[in-house]
């Protein structure tokens, strides 16, 4: 089937809001080239589970393209329309399973050496969208906090090497009550924001057991222990059933629902809970290594929440991951190996850098406040407007004073 043949009944299996969106823009969808239509429908079909920032992007894009004349639209879609596709792709269930379509499209583009062209076209389109419908700036300057090194008595590794050139390296932070102060600071930002509860604007991600927090959207590795076990068991079943290549496995995982792995919204829970459940499931089904390593989980969760929810506060706390075991054992849900705090500190150090990089990709990048702290120790780095880059300070200061540097 080609986009021109689309009918409203083709969206019958879509969740309610997605169905409404697709139906409302049927005339536009019918005019799109197949490759682009599949990509767009992958966003639309998940509309009910998307964060507000993502919905805004989908709505804006559909409205913008829908307002174009036929000539303008053809011109804008020229690159996508010029990709050489095959008839197998037309025969896929690209409307009801756009993720599966994307897997096949990707394989086709690689095998026909069109991937570079596709990336160029997609980058150009993304740049165009950013120009015509820029994301709104945050209501307050974004704050990123990364707490690394839980359980490490002494670092034998030069920490924050990649972050230090961006800000001030602090070497005499008083660690007492540091974590508590940071948690309170994040919670205060949430309580000061009247839209916080509905907008997924303030996050707390923990690689171990989450601490009590108020007003923050919370995700933790331990909190998803049951889900991870169920997911790994399901993965094993699929692998053992035979004939399951990685693409097919990925497609099947992508179609899982939160309730399949124990993420059930309580009766009467607000829709936000369902959105969060879908997000948590995606961390485990789309992330690589998030199911087995707590450090990877935190880094990926921070990346995805920044990319998708565009929050104003993110506090990420790393906890020790398990030591390396044979991959088959880890994926089969075997008992976790002993923790590796030292290796985890190295992972977290890189993860902190990646979190800062991901923050710089969002609107308001020039106003970012960022803190990475070696938990329980005196070492930290702070980055923010007015803070001199590539400098260090050995002035003693407690965590309140550190935060004041970022005020």
């Amino acid at each position: 089937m080609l986009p021109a043949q689309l009918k409203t009944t083709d969206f019958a299996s879509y969740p309610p809001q997605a169905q409404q969106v697709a139906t409302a823009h049927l005339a536009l969808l019918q005019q799109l080239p197949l490759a682009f239509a599949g990509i767009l429908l992958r966003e639309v079909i998940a509309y009910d589970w998307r964060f507000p920032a993502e919905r805004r992007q989908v709505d804006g894009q559909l409205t913008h393209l829908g307002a174009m004349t036929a000539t303008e639209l053809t011109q804008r879609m020229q690159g996508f329309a010029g990709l050489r596709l095959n008839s197998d792709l037309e025969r896929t269930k690209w409307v009801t399973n756009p993720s599966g379509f994307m897997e096949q499209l990707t394989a086709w583009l690689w095998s026909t050496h069109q991937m570079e062209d596709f990336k160029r076209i997609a980058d150009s389109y993304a740049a165009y969208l950013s120009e015509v419908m820029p994301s709104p700036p945050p209501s307050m300057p974004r704050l990123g906090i990364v707490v690394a090194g839980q359980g490490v008595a002494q670092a034998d590794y030069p920490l924050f090497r990649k972050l230090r050139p961006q800000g001030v390296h602090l070497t005499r932070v008083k660690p007492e009550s540091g974590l508590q102060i940071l948690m309170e600071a994040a919670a205060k930002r949430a309580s000061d924001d009247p839209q916080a509860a509905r907008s997924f604007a303030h996050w707390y991600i923990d690689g171990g057991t989450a601490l009590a927090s108020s007003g923050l959207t919370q995700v933790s590795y331990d909190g998803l222990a049951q889900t991870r076990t169920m997911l790994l068991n399901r993965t094993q079943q699929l692998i053992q059933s035979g004939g399951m290549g990685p693409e097919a496995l990925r497609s099947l995982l992508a179609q899982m629902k939160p309730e399949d792995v124990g993420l059930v919204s309580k009766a009467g829970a607000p829709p936000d809970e369902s959105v969060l459940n879908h997000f948590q499931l995606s961390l485990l089904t789309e992330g690589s290594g998030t199911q087995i390593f707590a450090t990877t989980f935190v880094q990926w969760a921070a990346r995805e929440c920044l990319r998708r929810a565009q929050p104003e506060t993110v506090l990420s706390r790393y906890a020790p991951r398990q030591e390396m075991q044979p991959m088959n054992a880890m994926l089969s849900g075997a008992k976790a190996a002993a923790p590796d705090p030292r290796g985890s500190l190295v992972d977290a150090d890189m993860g902190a850098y990646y979190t800062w990089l991901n923050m710089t990709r969002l609107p308001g990048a020039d106003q970012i406040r960022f803190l990475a702290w070696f938990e329980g120790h005196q070492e930290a780095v702070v980055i923010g407007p007015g803070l001199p880059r590539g400098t260090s300070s050995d002035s003693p200061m407690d965590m309140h004073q550190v935060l004041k540097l970022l005020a």
Partner: protein
Amino acid sequence: MAAKQGWDRREFLRAAAGTAASSAMFGFSPLRALNRPRGQKAVVVTFGGGARDEETFAPDGQENIPRMLTELIPQSTFFTQVINHGILGHYVATASLATGAYETLNNFALTPPQSPTVFEYFRKDLKRPAQDTWVVAPSNGFNKIGCSDNHLYGPNYGAQVLLPKQLLTAAMGGRSGIDYEHLLRDNYESPTSTPTPQTQAEDIHKTAEILKLSLDDFRSHAQSLASPDELSVFIARQLMQQQAPSLLWITLHDIDIAHSGAYSLYIDGIRRSDRLCAEIWQAIETNPEYKGRTTMFILPDFGRDSDLNPGGNGFQHHRTGDALSRTTWMMVMGPGVRQNVVVDRPVDSLDLVPTLGSLLGFSPKLAKGQPLREVL
């Protein structure tokens, strides 16, 4: 971007190892013809899982590759820009390196390359026996890399493929693998590990016989090894001792643990690979069958994603197809190869097979790419 990366590598090397730019030193008249040793051999080492400059040649990364910087690069001609224009999956990319043509096969399927491999050209043109060319590969998915399904070549001219894990699995003979499981990791690109290909017991014993290795000794030694790549290098050394193949291809993949997202494990993999490459060269230099007549090529199959590409997740994958993930390096060392020299011009991954052809004296008729004149 690729050119900048190549320039960066040259500057890093100049600072670290005092290497010289090639064009300043030589006009590249073909030196090898003057002193090509009799019984020329070649050892190719590829990494299935590239390492980025940040973790290797850049100032902060140099601590991870001390053996390459101090022992290997000073003896080698180093190409700073080796560009892979093909599919960035490890099996298909390694198959492309081995055929000299960009393969389009399914990266995760047990299928042979479409174009003839370097092993087939070598054996057919030079009328070499099967035991004269071997592949030691880490992943069960590489089972079919020894020969293509091209009707002019094919299995009669292919390499012997040795999958150490297959050997170890068979050697365990149904016993508990608890002591060996760390050596049985398969590829890291996918959660679905490729099943171990079925092997007859007699084949295993034949392989053990070829390696002059009792299965008990093998089991015992395997227990002392830390990773699949160490197992591969152990097997490769046995092969060199017992069979002295003229064309030996070793594929390492410990670095690809990066796909798990654990940066420290990725760094551990780089350090181990650095050590193992030096050990392979040592094995060449201390083996009379190889010393003075062997050219070694070391190259990653491709790179990894840049930290700065928002489409990727930095070191973890090689999915963006950006310049960093496509541009890698190669070092070549051995008799007649200029030492401590850097070549800045961009070359193609496919140039490896024609270069091996010129070096060993066979004609890779269907391969693309050009012989690298700087090492011939």
